[in-house]
């Protein structure tokens, strides 16, 4: 079952009984169907659409303070400006809308706009609706706001202080969530340990920063009492339900339409939903359709980001490097509010907290704090980079403490292929993998002995060279049940249990035999349309270019469910199966019609090369005719068959269950694996980190399209490198944002990216019919810690703080080091 391959070739599982005449499309590096339009300026992104006549434009007034009470808000001068239609304030919002539901017991109140207090710099205070964006921005300057500044709470450890001013008075503390868990014999593990390794880890706040910002075009249709909203939102996910609840309307009166093209997200555009509610309300109050296109300054201060985390970790180990148990005390900072799906960052990796290692016992304390920073949410790798920063740094520190080569420690603890499916102590069930083969492949690609020798000779010359490694389990297809683990069992039991990762797809064949697929996966560049066409073409015996795939999602007309959308790398393991199953339903019907027409048995019909064919080759009829019969001549159909061809399939992985009574949860559907090796050199004069070599080996299960898979790996790597070396959403001690422009929030460019070597040791997943695992997030999870490990090795340092910008690294090298912020 296991296949090792270079990046050009792919292993393919047969989908149906092998038929030599049928072309295999799945697994081929098919060129993307998306590209011709995007390359010729004909993409259809949110701001390219004009769904409603006579639309108006919104601009949002934002708080210049991190923390303040609003003492005065006078919008009259703004309303008096010619071209201004309406100004919406917190008072309008609290009158029309309920706070968003929050998934923790203390329920800090969260509205899409500040009501009487601002809690982060950039928080919306009012919305102006005007004839155009220029006038709307003029009007913002005329709104008169009085602020009474309050003491800001900025850093995690400040928020843990009992005397920090609570952001949410009703909660009474900035620690808004505190839960402890224990799995396995933790006390025993620590009692039997020969050594303890203990450290504090700090992980920074950074962001997704897609090149296209948020965009919302909302129209409240009064007669129907319905909100129709177009937005580059990649739900609906659980968030559609939350928006309907906030707007206090039946959910079928909130129609969300996602455009065919989204200019990147990497998670962050899931957090456009409070703005969907805000702009929807603005449309209702102003009585006109309203367009809001976020600008870059708004995006950097007030969209969303990853969470920053502080972890106090302790490992119980044997002298040979065996890890017996872990103690993790983790504090996530979700910023000013707990915006759903937070606190998922803290819980996405919960079942997977022991990573790729056989660690039988783990105790966890999870806390969440509120600070006067931008609220957090999905960011490529979500929760993974934070978790692995702790775990993989810890493994490196264990090796250092014991005087062992880190590879030896990794090998000792890394799960073996015989152990799969592996039941991790906190609940994840790893489907498949050959982690050791992947590790060996990485060592081989990197020529590890040469790497070590190179490091030694460089060091002999006084150069600062280091090697870093990271082994990470990459979960994909989130279990909707994992987030409820934030609630204690008794509270959990009061609401209905949640589980699964359901996705849907619809396929229709029209009267002339043309095939159309409708997705609910809201892609943002991952090539879902291409892969869907490959899958459907293979099932129906067509060519991909004959299959039209629509990526627009419309909550009123698309088939979707609570997990639908694009996040947690769920396309390959989950959505692709829904697509295949829908195609199989269609194939079933086509074959049944053909068998009836041919007068042969169902099993003797196959779909090949655009036609139905009998096994003996005597009957061949085009798909157009077979499908046509279902439309033009229902009387010719087999008895009892419905006319038309329009099939929807829903799919979830049946193994995913709600959390059990012992707080164990299988947080994801399937689990890929990534092992990375890096060689870096630090310039002692400037502190610049130069990534000399980077090898990444992936297990992404069955590869559906190798070109797209490697594209995802490269993108994930670049994002991870940004987090490792460049990017931080930085605030000063007053909570004032210091990274408010793209000049101050430095995304790496082509000149900063090293070339990487990609390898594969793909082990198909037995848990999902296509065998595919997610792939887009792995390097976003691994690269920050792998670079950190390499730099720590180069400098001989125990403590490293990301991002490793030159001045920070240089300060670390100074004899009287002071921490650079």
């Amino acid at each position, binding site marked *: 079952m296991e296949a090792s391959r270079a990046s050009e070739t792919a292993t393919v599982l047969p989908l149906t009984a092998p038929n030599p005449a049928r072309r295999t499309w799945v697994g081929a590096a098919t060129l993307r169907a998306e590209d011709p339009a995007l390359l010729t300026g004909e993409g259809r992104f949110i701001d390219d659409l004009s769904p409603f006549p006579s639309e108006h434009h919104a601009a949002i007034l934002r708080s210049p303070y991190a923390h303040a009470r609003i003492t005065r808000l006078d919008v009259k001068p703004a309303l008096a400006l010619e071209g201004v239609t309406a100004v919406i304030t917190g008072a309008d919002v609290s009158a029309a809308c309920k706070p968003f539901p929050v998934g923790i017991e203390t329920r800090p109140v969260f509205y899409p706009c500040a009501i009487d207090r601002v809690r982060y710099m950039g928080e919306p205070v009012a919305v102006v609706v005007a004839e155009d*964006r*220029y006038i709307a*921005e*003029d009007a913002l*300057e005329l709104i008169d706001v009085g602020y009474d500044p309050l003491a800001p709470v900025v850093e995690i450890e400040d928020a843990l202080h009992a005397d920090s001013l609570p952001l949410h008075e009703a909660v009474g503390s900035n620690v808004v969530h505190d839960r402890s868990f224990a799995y396995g014999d933790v006390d025993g593990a620590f009692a039997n340990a020969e050594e303890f390794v203990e450290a504090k880890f700090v992980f920074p706040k950074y962001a997704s920063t897609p090149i296209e910002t948020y965009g919302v075009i909302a129209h409240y249709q009064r007669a129907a009492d319905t909100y129709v909203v177009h937005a580059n939102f990649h739900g609906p996910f659980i968030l559609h339900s939350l928006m309907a609840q906030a707007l206090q309307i039946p959910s079928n009166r909130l129609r969300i339409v996602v455009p065919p093209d989204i200019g990147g997200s990497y998670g962050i555009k899931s957090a456009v939903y409070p703005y969907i509610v805000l702009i929807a309300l603005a449309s209702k109050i102003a009585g006109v359709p309203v367009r809001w296109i976020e*600008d*870059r*300054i708004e995006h950097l201060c007030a969209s969303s980001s990853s969470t920053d985390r502080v972890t106090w970790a302790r490992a119980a180990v044997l002298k040979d490097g065996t890890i017996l148990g872990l103690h993790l005390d983790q504090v996530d900072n979700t910023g000013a509010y707990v915006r759903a799906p937070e606190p998922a960052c803290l819980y996405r990796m919960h079942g997977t907290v022991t990573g790729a290692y056989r660690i039988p016992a783990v105790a966890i304390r999870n806390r969440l704090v509120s600070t006067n920073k931008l609220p957090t949410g999905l960011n490529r790798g979500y929760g993974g980079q934070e978790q692995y920063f702790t775990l993989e740094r810890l493994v490196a520190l264990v090796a250092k403490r014991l005087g062992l080569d880190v590879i030896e420690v990794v090998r000792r603890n890394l799960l073996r292929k015989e152990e799969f499916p592996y039941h991790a102590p906190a609940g994840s069930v790893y489907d498949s993998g050959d982690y050791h083969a992947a590790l060996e492949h990485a060592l081989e690609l990197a020529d590890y002995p040469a790497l070590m020798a190179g490091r030694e000779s460089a060091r002999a010359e006084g150069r600062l060279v280091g090697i870093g490694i990271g082994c990470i389990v990459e979960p994909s297809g989130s279990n909707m049940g994992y987030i409820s683990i934030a609630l204690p069992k008794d509270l959990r039991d009061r609401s209905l249990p949640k589980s699964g990762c359901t996705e849907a797809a619809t396929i229709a064949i029209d009267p002339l035999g043309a095939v159309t697929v409708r997705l609910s996966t809201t892609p943002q560049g991952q090539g879902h349309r291409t892969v869907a066409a490959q899958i459907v073409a293979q099932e129906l015996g067509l060519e991909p270019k004959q299959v039209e795939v629509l990526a627009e999602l419309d909550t009123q007309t698309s088939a979707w469910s609570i997990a639908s959308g694009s996040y947690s790398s769920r396309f390959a393991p989950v959505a692709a199966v829904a697509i295949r199953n829908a195609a199989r339903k269609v194939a079933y019907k086509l074959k049944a019609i053909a068998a009836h027409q041919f007068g042969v048995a169902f099993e003797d019909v196959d779909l090949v090369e655009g036609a139905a064919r009998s096994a003996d080759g005597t009957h061949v009829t085009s798909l157009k005719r077979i499908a046509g019969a279902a439309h033009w001549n229902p009387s010719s159909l087999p008895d009892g068959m419905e006319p038309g061809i329009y099939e929807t399939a829903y799919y979830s992985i049946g193994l995913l269950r709600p959390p059990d009574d012992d707080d164990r949860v299988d947080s994801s559907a399937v689990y890929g694996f990534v092992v990375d090796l890096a060689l870096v050199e630090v310039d002692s*004069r*400037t*502190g*610049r980190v130069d990534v000399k070599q980077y090898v990444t080996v992936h297990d992404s299960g069955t590869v559906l399209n190798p070109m797209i898979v490697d594209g995802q790996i490269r993108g994930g790597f670049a994002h991870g490198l940004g987090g490792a070396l*460049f990017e931080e959403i*930085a605030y000063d001690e007053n909570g004032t944002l*210091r*990274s408010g*422009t793209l*000049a*101050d929030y*430095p995304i*790496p*460019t082509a*000149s*900063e990216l090293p070339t990487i070597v990609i390898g594969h040791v793909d082990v198909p997943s037995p848990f999902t019919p296509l065998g595919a695992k997610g792939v887009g997030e792995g390097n976003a999870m691994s690269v920050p810690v792998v670079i950190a490990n390499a730099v720590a090795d180069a400098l001989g340092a125990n403590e490293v703080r990301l991002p490793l*910008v*030159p*001045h920070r690294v*240089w*300060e670390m090298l*100074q004899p009287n080091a*002071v921490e*650079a912020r």
Partner: protein
Amino acid sequence: MKPAPFDYYCPRSLDEALALLAQYGDEAKVLAGGQSLVPAMNMRLARPGVIVDVNRLPEAAVIERCDGSLRVGMLARQADLERMPVALDAVPLLAQALPHVGHWQTRNRGTVCGSLAHADPSAELPLAIVVLDGAIEARSSARGTRWIAAGQFFESYFQTALQNDEIVVGASFPARREGWGYAFEEFAGRHGDFAIVAVACAVALEPNGVASEVRLGLGGVADKPHLAPLTAYCGRVLSQRDLPEIANAAVADIEPPSDLRGSARYRRALATNLAQRALTRALASARTACDGLAQ
């Protein structure tokens, strides 16, 4: 991010432009390449009431050699210079500095004189002109033309000796001279970013190997380009072993700022390091130039 409203003038002669500035004073802003002014206007950090767009002034884009200098007209784009091998050859320090100024796409529009007038303390071109001891030609309708030595032109952060009725109509960069060597070194976070620290250096050697002039300027370490006082090292034969000392002397009296991109001591260390590299290269190229002379 849309600019606040402004009255727009597009004069077709310099006199018209000068008259507008005389009329509107502080309220008016000259719009040249727009690569610094327009971002500031889009963010509404700059909100001039009157824009005087100089992009259609005739003859203003001239780049020419005259009297041992390269004269760069007010509308010469940064990329225009890069496209003129003669110009780059005439002023090697400019040739080395230009690729560090933003990106090819911004240099296609941004002007050399606009960069000087903007006076960002981390910008490359102000540093280059100070080290070369060039001059800036300013003109007003009331007082006509005056030349301002580069050393006097830059006053503080985004602050120059220019009066609000004056336009920079050109800049003069002294051309390569016999026996001189030049080097530009910079350290920035990413390619194309403003420098964290930049160093420009020009060294003149006499045929006997004595350094007759050592000029070294630092960018990003003060509120304006900082010219290090290195006269003590003139009149001596300089060897590689002297360079660390000179580099230390060059940074001795700087008081660099601390910010997001580095502490004061980091900037000082970078400055020392870059200064040493620049001195090394400038000296080497001066030696080559002398050898060329000797042959």
